[in-house]
């Protein structure tokens, strides 16, 4: 390395996003000091929780060197599936009129299962049929949305937003322990579980290897097909859980839920340091990526800026993040 100049450049390169985020929070706090309160923090974390789950799923995919555009629609589908199984018997347009009230584990598991199935579908398309991931999951995205709309339009519901959820179900999305919302606890729990899986298990190591160099991984005796299948199914499980929690959080569900969540998730992953080329990514980075977007969302609204500005700011941040990423990983030969 020659001289300080380069070090400062490297430093800026590595921490540019953190610096931008701190500056933005600082600016928002100056304009509106109430921004730095516990209530705002709790709100941001609660809103981020389902986004974190989707982004963690997306991270698996990106680390394995693949792509997934179906996440958002899977959230929508699983929100509707979970919601339709968690209504009280008194509700006037119960989705399944004959169905008894069930413990909340049933809708939760149903949502996760649906997510896993969609993941398997993606996995087969990408790893077996060798359809480029971008296109395969774009197709899945449409299929899933179509299936969701058909299901949602079933009589007697006829495409009306689902409501009348069981108390225990809504409580999952709104309750808290000592001020910490359940949702935040679940999201953090999943983050820790994913971190453990990624860093401490064979599977985690193999996902990195496949993403880093699929041919070398294959030569080393790794079953690349199996790893990609597992990756997509794990991601699907996380999307499913996110969908279910999205229904509990909002106390409703409709087929339009989850729209463009996958794009936000991909953006969060890239901003959080995942390499778009695969093989690189950390849970901490991804959680940070989600938080930065949600802080921007919340903060800009908080100081009274039109929500349209959020798109502009988010878009620019994605471009900056990828520009930095390209220099970090592609520049070194």
């Amino acid at each position, binding site marked *: 390395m020659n001289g300080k100049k380069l070090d400062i450049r490297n430093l800026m390169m590595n921490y540019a996003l953190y610096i931008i985020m701190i500056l933005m929070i600082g600016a928002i706090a100056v304009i509106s000091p109430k921004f730095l309160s516990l209530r705002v923090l709790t709100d941001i974390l609660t809103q981020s929780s389902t986004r974190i789950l989707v982004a963690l799923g997306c991270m698996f995919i990106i680390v394995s060197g693949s792509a997934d555009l179906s996440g958002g629609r899977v959230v929508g589908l699983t929100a509707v599936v979970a919601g339709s199984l968690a209504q009280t018997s008194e509700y006037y347009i119960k989705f399944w009129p004959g169905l008894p009230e069930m413990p909340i584990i049933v809708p939760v598991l149903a949502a996760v299962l649906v997510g896993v199935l969609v993941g398997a579908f993606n996995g087969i398309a990408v790893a077996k049929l060798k359809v480029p991931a971008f296109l395969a999951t774009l197709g899945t995205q449409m299929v899933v949305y179509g299936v969701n709309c058909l299901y949602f339009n079933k009589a007697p519901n006829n495409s009306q937003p689902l409501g009348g959820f069981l108390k225990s179900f809504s409580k999952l999305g709104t309750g808290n322990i000592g001020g910490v919302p359940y949702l935040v606890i679940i999201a953090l729990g999943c983050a820790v579980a994913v971190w453990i899986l990624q860093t401490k298990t*064979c599977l985690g190591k193999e996902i*990195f*290897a496949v993403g880093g160099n699929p*041919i*070398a*991984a*294959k*030569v080393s005796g790794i079953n690349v097909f199996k790893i990609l299948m597992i990756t997509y199914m794990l991601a699907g499980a996380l999307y499913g859980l996110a969908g279910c929690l999205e229904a509990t959080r909002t106390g409703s569900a409709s087929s339009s839920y989850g729209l463009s969540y996958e794009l936000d998730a991909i953006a969060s992953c890239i901003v959080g340091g995942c*390499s778009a080329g695969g093989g*690189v990514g950390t849970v901490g980075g991804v959680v940070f990526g989600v938080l930065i977007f949600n802080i921007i969302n919340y903060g800009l609204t908080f100081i009274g800026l039109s929500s349209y500005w959020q798109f502009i700011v988010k878009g620019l941040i994605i471009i900056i993040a990828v520009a930095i990423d390209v220099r970090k990983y592609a520049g070194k030969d």
Partner: protein
Amino acid sequence: MDQLDVILEMKEISKSFPGVKALDKVSLKVKEGTVHALMGENGAGKSTLMKCAFGIYHPDEGEIFVNGKNVHFADTKNAMDQGISMIHQELHPIRVRNVMENIWVGRIPYKKIGGVKWVDYKTMYDKTVQLFEHLGITINPREMVSNLSVSHCQLLEIARAVSYGAKVIIMDEPTSSLTETESELLFRIIRQLTAQKVAIIYISHKIEEVLMISDEITILRDGMLVGSWNSKEMNMDLIVKRMVGREMTNRFPQKNHKPGTVKMEAKNLTSPNPHSFKNVSFQVRKGEILGIGGLVGAQRTELMEAVFGLRKIAEGQIFIDGKEVTIHSPSEAIRHKMALLTEERRFTGIIPMLSVEDNIVIANQSAHKRAYTGGKLFLSKKKRAQDAKKYVDSFSIKTPGLKTQIQYLSGGNQQKALLGRWMLINPDLLILDEPTRGIDVGAKYEIYSLMEQMAAEGKSVIMISSEMPELMGMSDRIMVMCEGRLSGIIEGNEVTEERIMYLASMVEEARSDTEKGGLDTDER
């Protein structure tokens, strides 16, 4: 022939790459209307010289003259403007477009109507027909390139070169993927071109072919000029001798191993790809180092990758310890205690952004999960670090730490780490594909020592190598391939460079005197 004008002259060209002097004061004179063959072993500097002539590389020293005029080529466009064209071994036509569009791409004839440039298909067609007639090529200009055979694609490239007004056309191994009939067609076109005063520089390993088509032969060895001769003065033996002629030095560890019983046997292995290996049978014994020699395109890598389950085998059997096995994937090969160090370290070996430790343990960890988890869910950090450290120490891999990303290590150290990856699974059969390519002498010796040590322990080693001294210095037997076929197996005491070169370059003759059953189908 001496009255002909020199059209391209290269004077004392030198070119170095980090650590290698690829060309050392090489001169070449090509006369108009002649075929000038350029020969030499792999790595002799033929391609480098031609890339200098075509503006892909810039020589460190020396001068290039075209028609007596001193020229400097900044890039290939420059070279083409001066009438130099090159047809690469691997062709890259635009497959989804038709023949004439491929020829005129970048210079499509147009008519300007209303300020818009409209493609003038009529002119394009007529010009193509004219060009093809001139060369005696019979390809429909409207045919889709994806429907053309390899040889027709080559003719297309030649036609394109001529359409640029090429006076010198460089052909790099043009017949390597052609059948004999297709080669005949190519030779006819070449003769047509020379009759029109175009000069051809012809790079080939096929001695017979060179003797037949060329007027002059220039031979390079280790980046240096051996000499240029009139083809009429040359014969097979002279060419081989001049291409080889190198002293063997003591760069190899002493042999202490003794081949025992057969470890692995392959019978009549044939690839589903008709251009790849065909009917190859061989054995490797315990405690033996089997060398595999051959030229570029001999399909040695493909054969070994197929044995290791990376490629498909259409026909044939593999026996390990006398038992027939089927291997569909590398993980199955690893279960049979085989290991493969691949040829392209960067593309199929290292996982660049992962650590040295991750890279070393990856194969063993997926083959023997239990060894790392003890049957529990989590990996033992200690075990992983121990295993990685063992090979970092014993192979003296220079790395700042186990957690350093492997991409920051030098080539030799990366290669040693990959060897560590395979040593960890404790293989009985180690296949090495060009194990010392692009690494320094010290690391080379360490790799040789490891091979020797494995053989001494009664393990089997197969080494594909294009470096003659290495092949001869390390192998107990050398199996030589040519164009996907086994052209002969040479026992240790009969090995000479001439014999290897002979077998590697002329499959026809070789087959007739080494054939022992097996190779019965001769489609040519």
